[in-house]
């Protein structure tokens, strides 16, 4: 997936560019055209708004065609999606098209490149290359901005997360609906106000060394999210230590004491006594060790979601 800080959920028009939802292309907006070129009379020179819009659309088409020449066709749809939904690349597209417009206005330019370049009198031909259509500077801007990269930088179909422990990974997978956490742990849900809690039952499990983890993180009343550090088994209580001195205790009179917990409930995870189910294979995910005792979960299928939400094929 595209990193969240760079992601545009719904590409749309703004004062600088308009977005063509049919061809999935940005083009410079009519309002910004004069400012981009530094020429207030440009629309008049071109013969009106319609002509100007046609030219802006055509410039966009040519720019995208030159950008597409750098990448293999198998990436076409995904590249087009990436250009449309990345803030960074959107800015570089704007810079590139501004430069192409400047090139158009100069002697030579895009429309000169469309000439055949054949001189029948002298039986010579002038070879038109892609650079002639957009100009050398615009080409360099494409390279500088990453528009000319041959391979997609991000995998649009995959989302990866890293977890320090297997418990965290399985809890996440349970939230996502890939597995049922009860197949892997005995889960005890305790009300934060201490009701619905049997100390003796839980203490037996702790004494048998079956404790794995507590719900992580827990939010305390001052809206501070804190992570679990350790627990201690004392004579009449079980003490849970969190970051920055926050704690709570399970008391032998079936009460919960310590820093008040914001969440209405929290969970404790214990190992199962009977055989644990194997993690099922799935096309939706892949859980692999990260080589350091933790795990990386790769989730797949996001590209199809992109296609489905757009309603048309890219």
């Amino acid at each position, binding site marked *: *997936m*595209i*990193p969240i800080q760079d992601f545009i959920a719904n590409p749309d028009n703004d004062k600088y560019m308009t977005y063509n939802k049919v061809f999935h292309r940005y083009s410079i907006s009519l309002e910004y055209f004069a400012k981009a070129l530094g020429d207030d009379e440009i629309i008049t020179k071109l013969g009106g708004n319609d002509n100007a819009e046609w030219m802006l659309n055509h410039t966009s088409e040519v720019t995208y065609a030159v950008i597409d020449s750098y990448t*293999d*066709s*198998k990436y076409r749809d995904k590249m087009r999606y990436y250009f449309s939904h990345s803030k960074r690349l959107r800015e570089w597209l704007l810079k590139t098209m501004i430069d192409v417009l400047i090139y158009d206005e100069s002697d030579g330019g895009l429309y000169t490149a469309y000439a055949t370049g054949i001189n029948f009198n002298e039986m010579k031909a002038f070879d038109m290359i892609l650079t002639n259509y957009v100009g050398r500077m615009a080409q360099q801007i494409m390279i500088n901005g990453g528009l000319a990269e*041959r*391979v*997609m*930088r*991000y*995998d649009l179909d*995959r*989302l*990866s*997360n*890293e977890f320090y422990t297997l418990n965290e990974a399985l809890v996440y997978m349970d939230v996502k609906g890939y597995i049922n956490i009860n197949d892997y742990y005995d889960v005890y849900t305790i009300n934060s106000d201490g009701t619905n809690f049997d100390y003796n039952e839980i203490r037996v499990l702790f004494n048998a060394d079956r404790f794995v983890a507590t719900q992580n993180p827990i939010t305390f009343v001052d809206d501070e999210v804190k992570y679990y550090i350790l627990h201690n088994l004392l004579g009449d209580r079980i003490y849970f230590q969190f970051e920055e001195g926050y704690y709570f205790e399970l008391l032998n009179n079936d009460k919960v004491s310590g820093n008040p917990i914001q969440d209405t409930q929290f969970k404790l995870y214990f190992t199962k006594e009977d055989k644990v189910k194997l993690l099922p294979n799935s096309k939706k995910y892949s859980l*692999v*060790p*990260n*080589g*350091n*005792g933790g795990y*990386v979960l*790769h989730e797949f299928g996001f590209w199809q979601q992109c296609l489905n939400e757009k309603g048309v094929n890219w």
Partner: protein
Amino acid sequence: MFESGNGTVAPMDYDSKIYVGSSVNQLFLNLLNPYHHFSWSKVTVNVEWPVFDSFGIEENDYRGSGLTREQYDNITYYDENIFTLSWGLPFKEFLDSKDSIIYPMFIDLVNEAKAYIRYSIFKDQFKWRKLVSLYIAHHLELFMEIIKDVHNDRSMNVRVTDEQEHRKITIGQEVMKNFDTTVYGRLFWQEYKPLAKYVIWGVIE
């Protein structure tokens, strides 16, 4: 004479005593003269030298490293930050996001490198990290070259050149292959090669 389980006939430090009376000769002596004090006394010979060090027990010698498992995992911790601090620096921008196209490959290579390059061979954290970094960098460089597919070999489009695309470097008459195809690979193999054969033969655990 000594325990046979250790696979050697040399006395080990935990097993350097010989009990006289266990040999065939002693049995005959007992038959000839059952009242000789050799036949009823237990005489032991304690070998002072040469005595060889015993192999470490597993708890304090995880994978032959001389460390506990916890110490071993701690010292062999390796992630993308450690990689990009050294030989992996050219790949830093590609590994700053877990959604990067090469991230799953990096994770697989970390697992592979940790299994292939045993810490117990070097017993030095920095040397070990250097070799793991070189191993991963070598494979990542090849991987990136393959996915860029400059020649369109893995494309439905026209092939850019008639040349077969493979990673080939020729120096003089010799065509370099395998680890020689990247700088990282050459550096890696130069240091690992002298020891690799001992790992394969099982002399080094």
